[in-house]
């Protein structure tokens, strides 16, 4: 029998979901790829039919469908309705299988001059809204 203090506060909240997020990742809590960010753009490499889907979980297949048109990892997480950290693990699986590609965000360092061409493009797009 467990002591009352063993329970952690998130236990109550986690019951909203039928499957605990880290069950989907087989207990893994960290991605093998620590370079994935919220705005890393994920793109599916090939149509699903070309490869077998053996070994892929439903969430993996959802990612492959969603990323036929490239989207940022945050959008993938929103689409799966899973925490960002869990999404990173699943995307990392697909990267290891070469089923998706990941484009890192453009480097924008604090205090560093940002590329003027990029800023002008952003401004033009905003003015076009």
């Amino acid at each position, binding site marked *: 029998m467990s002591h009352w*203090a063993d329970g*952690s*506060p*998130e236990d109550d*909240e986690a019951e909203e979901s039928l499957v605990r*997020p880290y069950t989907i990742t087989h207990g893994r809590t960290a991605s093998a790829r620590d370079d994935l*960010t*919220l*705005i*890393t*753009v994920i*793109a*599916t*490499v*090939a*149509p699903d039919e*070309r490869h077998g889907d053996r070994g892929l979980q439903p969430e993996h297949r959802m990612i492959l469908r969603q990323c*036929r*048109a*490239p989207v*940022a990892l*945050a*959008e993938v*997480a*929103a689409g799966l309705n899973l*925490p*960002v*950290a869990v999404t990173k693990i699943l995307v990392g699986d697909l990267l290891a299988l*070469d089923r998706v*590609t990941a*484009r*890192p*965000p*453009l*480097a*924008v*360092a*604090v*205090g560093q*001059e*940002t590329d*003027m061409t*990029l*800023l*002008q*493009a*952003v*401004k*033009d*797009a*905003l*003015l076009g*809204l």
Partner: protein
Amino acid sequence: MPYSDSDEQTGSQVCVAGTSTTPAAVKILIAGGFGVGKTTMVGSVSEIPPLHTEERLTVAGLGVDDLDGVERKTTTTVALDFGRITVNSQLVLYLFGTPGQERFWFMWNDLVHGALGAVVLADTRRLESSFASIDFFESRGVPFVVGVNCFHGLRDRTVDEVRDALDLDPGIPVVMGDLRERLDSRDLLVALVNLLMAGRPPAAVSG
């Protein structure tokens, strides 16, 4: 499977039918106290309805009674809403409405890291709710503009009054607007981009 070889990483010419090159992404943070209009602003300029995601962060002994000297860890869920503006075929801008509690941003480095800049939203009835965001971006050297949310065109304070009350650096733009209006929110983002294009490092205003 005649084409399967083409999936190998050759570094170039890995173009798959239907997908041209993948665009890169940049982001701008929308900050400010709870209920100040972050998601409203994201929604007014985003090309998609605001999306919602969350992260579970481990909080070491924060505000938890220490029962027996053993450091306890708890997990907290931090949520954010975000939207998207496609700049062109090669570039996508994401707008992230940050969690209201700034203390979580430090634990969520990915959220702040690599942002072009930030918009701090303020409500004239409770300007103090914006202090923490302003302090945060100033300390991190993240360029930001301040947007004063004026519902129904109600402007009970002038730009100078807001600037004084928030003790803002003269170089930081303050823009009034109704964030439900796409063009007002747009103008706030343009003010930020203009600030970035002026290339002003936060510490050196003199020229």
